[in-house]
C-alpha cells in the first residue's frame, strides 16, 4: 500500500526525462498509466465483505512519527475518487494541453498532488497526515500558477496558498493538541481515547482549530474566496483539484474525526451552520457569474457546503447521504468542468454572455452537459444520481431531531428552509449553465474560434463520468452495499446501511424537491428581471475586497512599522540600543535588589586624586561643547593623560605607560587624518531629539555609576588575584605580575589581541590602498 502512495512521487522524478520526447509522444500517456494502476490496485478491495486494512512503516520512531496507513471505507472512497478521476483527468489533459506547453512541469505537479492526496486520505498518523496536507496545498499552488506569466494566475495561486496554509497551520495546532493529550500520534488510537479529549479543557480550541483547517481547505464561507480565483488554473486542474479531490480534503478531515467530534453540540452548531450557509451563499452567487468556470467554482462551493452540512447534522441518514454525495458530486462536477474546458477549447471563450446556441455545433458535449447539469440540479429523473443524494439530503434535514433545546433547536427548525432556498438557486445556476451555453442565440461569428465538436479523446473522460452519473442513477444498488455503506459506516463509526431507491412516495423530501424544481424554473425564466438584486446583496460588500484590503493593510502596516524605527539614522539606533540596555539593566537590578551601597571598605581620597578627577571632568565636558574638531581632539587628549595619571596614582605603572603612549599615538593619528575630515558640523536635530539625547545619556551615565557602586558593594567571593601574586615568580619566572599574566597565565588573550591589531592594520591598509586603485581606474 505504501508503494501505491509513493508511486506518483517516484514517477514524478522521471517525468522530466520522459517529457523530452513530448514531441513524439505526449507525456500525458505515461502519466495516465499511474492512476490507472493505483485505481486497479484499490478497486480489488471493493466488495460487501470489506474489512479495514492497516499497514505500518517505520519513519521516525523516536518521535512516534511512523508512516501508518489505514484503509477503511472512507479512505477507499477517496482513494478511488482520486485515482479514478485522476486517470480521467490525466487522459483528458493529453488533448487539452498542447505539446508546446511545459508538460514536464505540469505532470510533475500533477503527480505530486495525486501522491500527496493519496497520502492525506490513507495516513493514520496525524503528523504524516499534516505533511501530505501541506503537500497538497503546495502542489495546488504550483498548479494554479501553472501559466505563471499571467497576472491572474499568480494572484489566484498566492491567495489559495495564503488561505489554505493558514488553515493548514491551525490544523497542525489541533493535531498536536490531540496527540499530546492522548500520548499517541495514530488517529485510530486517538479516536479510541475520545473521552480524554472530549473532557479536556482545551476541547473547544481543538475543535476550532481542526474545523478551521477543514473549512479553509474545503472552501467554506468565509474562506471560499480562494476557489473562484483558483479557476485560473488549466481546466484539467480545476476539474481534478477544485471539484473532485483537494476541496474534499476538508470534508475528509471532518469525516475522519467525525465519531469523536460529533459528540459535541458545538460540532453540530458550527459545521451545519457553516455548511448550510455556504450552500446558500455559493449557489446564490453562482447565478451571478458570467464565466463558465466561475459558475462551476461557486457551484462547487455550495455543493461542498451541502456535504459539510450533512456531516454536521450527524444523523445516520445524513452521514450516509454525505458519503453518497461525495461520490455523486465528483462524477457530475468533474464532467462539467471538462465540458467547460471543451467549450473553452473549441470556441476560445468561457464568457457565458458571448456563448449560446452551441448545441448544434457541439452535440455530444451538449448532451454530456445536459445530463451532468440536470444531475447537479437534482431533477427528479430516475437516471440522475444527483437527485438521489439531494433527496437524501432533504430527508435528513427534515428528520432532524427537534426535541432538543436552545440554539440547536432554533437552527434545526430553520435548516429545512435554508436547504430548499439553496437548492432553488442550485437549480437556477444549473439551468443557467446549460441553457446559457448551449441554447439560445449566440454570436457564433464573434467567437475567437469557429466552434466544432471536440476530438474524441477529449470527450472520453467526461463521457465515462456521465456514464457513471447515469449508471449510479439507474442502479444505485450497484455501488450501495459494496461501497457507499462501507464509507458511511467508517464515517459514522457504526454500521450504517440505507437503501437508495427512486420512488419514496409522496414524502416531505419529495415535496421539497418538487418545490425546488417549480420555484427554480420560475426563477430561471424570469432571471433577467431579478438579477438586479445582486446590486443590493452583496452589492459593494465583497469578501474579496476584504481579503485584498487585509493583505494590503498588512503589507502597508508592516512597512510602516519597519520604516518607523528603521530610518537609517545611526543616532536613533544608538538611542534605541542604550534605552534598551537601560530598561533591561534597571529592571533587572530593581528586581534582584541590586542597588546596594556598601561604604565599609572604601579607601581614603587624596588631594591629587580629586584634582586629577576635576581636570578630567572639565575636559570631558569641554569635549562635548567644543565647536572645533582640533580643539575637541586635544581636549580629549587631556582626558587620556588624566587617566594615565590616575593609573600612576593607583600604582599601575604598566598601564600608565601604555596609556600614555597609546594616547599620544591616537592623538597623533587623529591629527594625521584630521586633514581628511570634514568640518565639525552642527547637527540640526529637533529640540525634542536633543533633549532625548541628554536624558538618555545622563540616565545611562547614572545607571553605569550605580552598577559600578553596586558591583563594588556586593563582592560575593574572594578575588583570585592573590594567586597571581603568590605564583607569579614561582611559576612564571617574573616579578612583573601584569606582564606574567599577559604573556604566561593568560597568553591566549594577548595572542588574539595582537591578532585584532593586525587585522585593524590590514583593514586600514586595504581601505586606503583599494580606494586609490579604484581612483586610478
Amino acid at each position: 500500500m505504501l508503494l501505491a502512495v509513493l508511486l506518483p512521487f517516484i514517477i514524478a522524478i522521471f517525468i522530466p526525462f520522459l517529457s523530452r520526447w513530448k514531441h513524439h509522444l505526449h507525456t500525458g500517456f505515461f502519466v495516465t498509466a499511474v492512476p490507472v494502476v493505483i485505481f486497479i490496485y484499490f478497486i480489488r478491495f471493493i466488495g460487501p465483505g470489506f474489512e479495514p486494512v492497516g499497514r505500518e512503516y517505520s519513519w521516525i520512531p523516536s518521535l512516534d512519527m511512523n508512516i501508518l496507513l489505514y484503509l477503511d471505507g472512507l479512505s477507499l472512497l477517496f482513494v478511488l475518487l482520486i485515482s479514478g478521476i485522476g486517470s480521467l483527468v490525466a487522459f483528458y489533459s493529453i488533448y487539452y494541453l498542447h505539446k508546446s506547453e511545459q508538460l514536464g512541469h505540469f505532470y510533475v505537479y500533477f503527480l505530486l498532488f495525486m501522491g500527496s492526496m493519496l497520502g492525506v486520505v490513507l495516513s493514520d498518523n496525524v503528523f504524516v497526515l499534516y505533511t501530505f496536507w501541506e503537500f497538497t496545498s503546495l502542489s495546488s499552488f504550483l498548479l494554479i500558477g501553472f501559466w505563471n506569466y499571467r497576472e491572474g494566475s499568480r494572484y489566484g495561486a498566492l491567495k489559495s496558498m495564503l488561505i489554505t496554509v493558514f488553515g493548514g497551520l491551525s490544523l497542525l495546532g489541533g493535531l498536536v493538541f490531540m496527540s499530546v493529550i492522548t500520548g499517541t500520534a495514530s488517529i485510530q488510537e486517538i479516536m479510541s481515547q475520545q473521552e480524554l479529549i472530549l473532557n479536556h479543557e482545551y476541547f473547544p480550541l481543538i475543535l476550532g482549530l481542526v474545523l478551521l483547517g477543514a473549512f479553509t481547505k474545503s472552501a467554506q464561507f468565509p474562506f471560499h474566496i480562494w476557489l473562484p480565483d483558483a479557476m485560473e488554473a488549466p481546466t484539467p486542474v480545476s476539474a481534478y483539484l477544485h471539484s473532485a479531490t483537494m476541496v474534499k480534503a476538508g470534508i475528509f478531515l471532518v469525516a475522519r474525526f467525525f465519531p469523536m467530534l460529533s459528540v459535541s453540540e458545538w460540532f453540530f452548531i458550527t459545521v451545519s451552520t457553516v455548511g448550510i450557509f455556504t450552500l446558500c451563499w455559493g449557489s446564490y452567487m453562482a447565478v451571478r457569474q458570467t464565466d463558465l468556470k466561475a459558475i462551476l467554482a461557486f457551484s462547487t462551493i455550495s455543493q461542498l457546503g451541502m456535504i459539510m452540512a450533512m456531516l454536521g447534522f450527524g444523523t445516520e441518514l445524513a452521514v450516509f447521504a454525505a458519503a453518497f454525495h461525495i461520490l455523486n458530486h465528483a462524477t457530475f462536477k468533474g464532467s462539467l468542468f471538462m465540458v467547460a474546458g471543451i467549450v473553452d477549447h473549441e470556441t476560445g471563450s468561457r464568457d457565458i454572455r458571448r456563448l449560446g446556441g452551441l448545441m448544434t455545433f457541439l452535440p455530444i458535449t451538449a448532451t454530456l452537459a445536459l445530463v451532468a447539469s440536470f444531475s447537479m440540479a437534482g431533477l427528479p429523473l430516475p437516471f440522475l444520481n444527483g437527485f438521489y443524494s439531494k433527496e437524501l439530503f432533504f430527508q435528513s434535514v427534515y428528520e432532524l431531531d427537534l426535541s432538543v433545546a436552545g440554539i440547536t433547536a432554533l437552527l434545526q427548525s430553520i435548516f429545512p428552509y435554508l436547504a430548499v432556498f439553496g437548492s432553488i438557486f442550485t437549480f437556477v445556476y444549473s439551468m443557467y449553465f446549460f441553457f446559457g451555453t448551449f441554447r439560445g442565440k449566440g454570436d457564433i461569428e464573434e467567437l475567437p474560434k469557429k466552434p466544432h465538436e471536440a476530438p474524441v479523446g477529449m470527450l472520453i473522460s467526461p463521457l465515462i463520468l456521465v456514464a457513471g452519473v447515469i449508471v449510479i442513477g439507474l442502479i444505485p444498488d450497484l455501488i450501495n452495499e459494496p461501497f457507499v455503506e462501507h464509507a458511511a459506516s467508517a464515517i459514522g463509526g457504526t454500521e450504517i446501511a440505507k437503501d437508495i431507491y427512486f420512488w419514496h412516495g409522496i414524502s416531505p423530501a419529495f415535496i421539497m424537491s418538487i418545490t425546488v424544481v417549480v420555484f427554480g424554473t420560475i426563477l430561471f425564466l424570469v432571471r433577467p428581471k431579478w438579477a438586479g438584486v445582486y446590486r443590493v446583496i452583496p452589492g459593494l460588500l465583497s469578501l474579496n475586497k476584504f481579503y485584498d484590503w487585509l493583505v494590503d493593510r498588512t503589507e502597508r502596516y508592516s512597512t510602516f512599522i519597519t520604516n518607523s524605527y528603521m530610518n537609517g539614522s545611526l543616532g536613533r539606533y544608538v538611542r534605541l540600543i542604550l534605552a534598551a540596555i537601560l530598561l533591561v539593566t534597571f529592571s533587572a537590578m530593581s528586581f534582584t535588589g541590586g542597588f546596594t551601597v556598601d561604604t565599609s571598605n572604601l579607601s581614603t581620597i587624596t588631594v591629587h586624586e580629586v584634582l586629577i578627577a576635576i581636570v578630567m571632568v572639565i575636559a570631558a565636558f569641554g569635549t562635548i561643547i567644543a565647536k572645533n574638531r582640533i580643539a575637541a581632539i586635544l581636549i580629549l587628549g587631556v582626558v587620556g593623560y588624566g587617566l594615565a595619571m590616575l593609573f600612576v596614582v593607583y600604582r599601575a605603572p604598566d598601564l600608565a605607560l601604555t596609556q600614555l603612549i597609546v594616547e599620544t599615538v591616537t592623538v597623533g593619528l587623529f591629527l594625521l587624518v584630521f586633514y581628511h575630515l570634514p568640518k565639525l558640523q552642527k547637527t540640526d536635530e529637533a529640540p525634542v531629539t536633543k533633549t532625548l539625547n541628554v536624558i538618555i545619556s545622563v540616565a545611562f551615565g547614572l545607571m553605569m555609576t550605580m552598577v559600578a557602586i553596586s558591583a563594588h558593594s556586593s563582592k560575593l567571593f574572594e578575588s583570585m588575584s592573590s594567586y597571581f601574586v603568590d605564583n607569579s615568580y614561582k611559576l612564571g619566572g617574573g616579578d612583573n605580575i601584569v606582564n606574567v599574566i599577559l604573556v604566561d597565565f593568560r597568553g591566549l588573550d594577548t595572542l588574539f589581541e595582537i591578532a585584532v591589531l593586525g587585522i585593524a592594520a590590514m583593514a586600514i591598509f586595504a581601505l586606503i590602498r583599494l580606494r586609490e586603485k579604484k581612483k586610478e581606474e
Partner: protein
Amino acid sequence: MTRTNDLILRTTTALIAFILLGFSVYLFFAGHNKPGGGFIGGLMASAALVLMNMAYGLNVIRKVIPVNFLYMIFTGLIIAVGTGVGAFLFNAPFLTQNFGYFQLPILGRTELATALLFDLGVYLTVIGVTMTIILTVADDREED
C-alpha cells in the same frame, strides 16, 4: 611639498631616536621583572620611528629601514603562535610557557623564559601595526 630646513629637529632626532630605540629595547627585556614588556616596547619603538618620519620624511625612513611593516605583523603573529604550538613538542597544552636559568658567556647567570619569545611576537606585531597605520595614512596624505 617643500620642506623647511629643520636642522635642529633633525640633529636632535638623530640623538633622541637612538635613545628612544634603546629605551624600547630595555622596556622589552625588562618586561618580565620590571614595568614594560612587548606592548609598551613596541609602542615606544614606533614612537621613535614616527619621530624620524616627522624629521626626515617618509622616503628616508623607507631607505633606512627597508622593511615592509605588513610582513612584520605576520612575522610577529607567527612567532607568537609558534611559541604556543611549540608547547606541543613537550607534550604540554597550547601556550604553556617555561623558564630556566643558564650560565651565559657575558651576562653570567641569566634567566631565559619562553615567554620572552612570545613577547617578541607582541613587540614585532605592535611595531608593524602602528607603522603600517601611520605610514599608510601619511602616504595617502602626501599623494593628495
